[in-house]
């Protein structure tokens, strides 16, 4: 298994896709941090003022806004095997295909943890500089560190969901478009329509909000429940993906 995980890291780091996505995530997180801080305390925006605990929670959880890029890291990691037809040599080298998917899940969990750490550091730095300029840089106290940790965990889980989703759909473009549509269209609609908003707390987005931070949000689970639920979605995608990868013909 160690060999297979190292093989996945070799695959990941011998193309530049990871670098592009990580830089993109850093740029995005800086942008969100600046916007959040710029509009903090603005009565029209509804964002709490710099220095308040609620602002700090939102600022520390800001990194989860790049969850889509972590989802894409996972999706590309899995679907590139089908897109570039390397599934053939990969499964020839490791005929026990379940092991390949498990190795990918573990390899991407670790890689995503490293990427998440970078994003969290960048996020904190951006917030500290901007909020510091506006009066009060958030301290790295237990509360804020906890929120940062939850945000990082959520990013890792999204990468795992991405790997599972990729194994499920196999089509790279389809999986990415599907992921984007789900995150930015379907979930927001379900969240905003009163008739369906009750179900939102059970969905990945609801779980993510529960795990990290929210304001003016709908009814949500407890943070730890949200974390568990999100992890459950990750594992479900991984299990389904593994099951299908083992059964399907590679043609």
């Amino acid at each position: 298994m160690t060999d297979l995980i190292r093989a996945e890291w070799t695959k990941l780091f011998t193309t530049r896709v990871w670098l592009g996505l990580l830089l993109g995530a850093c740029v995005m997180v800086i942008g969100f941090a600046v916007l959040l801080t710029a509009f903090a305390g603005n009565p029209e925006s509804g964002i709490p003022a710099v220095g308040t605990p609620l602002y700090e929670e939102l600022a520390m959880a800001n990194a989860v806004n790049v969850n889509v890029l972590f989802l894409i890291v996972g999706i590309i990691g899995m679907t590139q095997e089908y897109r570039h037809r390397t599934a053939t040599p990969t499964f020839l080298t490791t005929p026990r295909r379940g092991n390949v998917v498990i190795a990918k899940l573990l390899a991407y969990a670790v890689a995503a943890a490293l990427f998440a750490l970078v994003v969290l550091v960048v996020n904190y730095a951006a917030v500290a500089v901007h909020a510091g300029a506006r009066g009060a840089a958030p301290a790295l106290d237990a509360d804020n560190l906890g929120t940062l940790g939850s945000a990082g965990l959520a990013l890792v889980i999204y990468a795992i969901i991405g790997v599972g989703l990729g194994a499920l759909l196999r089509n790279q473009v389809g999986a990415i478009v599907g992921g984007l549509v789900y995150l930015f269209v379907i979930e927001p609609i379900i969240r905003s329509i009163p008739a369906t908003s009750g179900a939102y707390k059970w969905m990945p987005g609801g779980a993510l909000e529960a795990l990290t931070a929210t304001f003016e949000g709908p009814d949500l689970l407890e943070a730890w429940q949200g974390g568990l639920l999100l992890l459950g979605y990750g594992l479900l995608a991984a299990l389904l993906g593994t099951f299908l990868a083992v059964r399907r013909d590679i043609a």
Partner: protein
Amino acid sequence: MPGVTGTGAVNGGRHARAGSRIVTPVRLDGRDTRHQTRRSAIATPHAPATGPVRVEVRGLTKSFGSVRAVSDLGFTVEPGTVTGFLGPNGAGKTTTLRMLLGLVRPDAGTATFDGTPYTSLREPVRTVGAVLETAFHPARSGRNHLRVYCRAAGLPVERADAVLAQVGLADAGRRRAGGYSLGMRQRLGLATALLGDPSVLVLDEPANGLDPEGIQWLRGFIRHLAHEQGRTVLVSSHLLSEVEQTVDRVVIVGAGRLVREASMAQLRSGAEGGGTVLVRSPQVARLAESLRADGMPVTLDGDDSLTVAGRTTAEVGARAFAAGVELHELRSRTSGLEEIYFQLTAGQEQYAAGATSPEGSR
């Protein structure tokens, strides 16, 4: 019957090769290295790390929807030989190879390497190497592509450089594989297959897209791997002429069924196919008399030549020698290999047109 005659042909081939090995110093070297490398974990590029492996396919069947791609197919690939896996496009060759390698699940039947299915092999990469299609990430260098599979198979990454040199890609190893020419891509695929120094090589249409020089190189390389290193090679093609100079035996399929399993010598002589033998002799009348006495169907073609139907050159030659007749020419007039191959597979066409789509082999 194919089994019996096949074994004979293989033994004949082995004797011939054993003989040449003794007189050729290069091949003696090869044998010495084999003894050394057996002990080390990773062999040099001179002999497979594991012993000879026989490939057996029995009753293999696979349908895609209503299309039956492969139907009760069975054949054997002997160690140390190059076996051509031939058939027209859509005959089910690729599907068969994918089932052999555990990538496609057969509806029925088995495919084994010394009795073990691919997916149960303890070290699949060291037993079997396969080139099914040129598959690599275009942004990854050839060397890194190979390193990925070294890692996955638990092989030292240095193997990547070794196989790159073996296929003549050493200088291009650090370039993006996406920029490789078609011939270089085929070589990279071959390099991937050779990583584990396998006893068996399975190559699906390896000559596709190669220029004449590349095909020449490939032929030599395949022969070297089988005859001098004792590997088992199964190479598919839709053209007999493409592999006719390379293979020792052929397995011909049409519409997913076995059409013929034979050695090239058997195919050439046309012994079972009822070919004709052409003889030229100044004593043609005496020869005809002698042959007819043996019950051979003789047709006189002119003053100095005759043809014998359904016999081999060996039989006719022996008869002429016994009768003390001078011969000026004795040759098998079996209309060329490609024609035999065409006849064999053409017999399946009616069935093929009805039951197999043109894309059936995928």
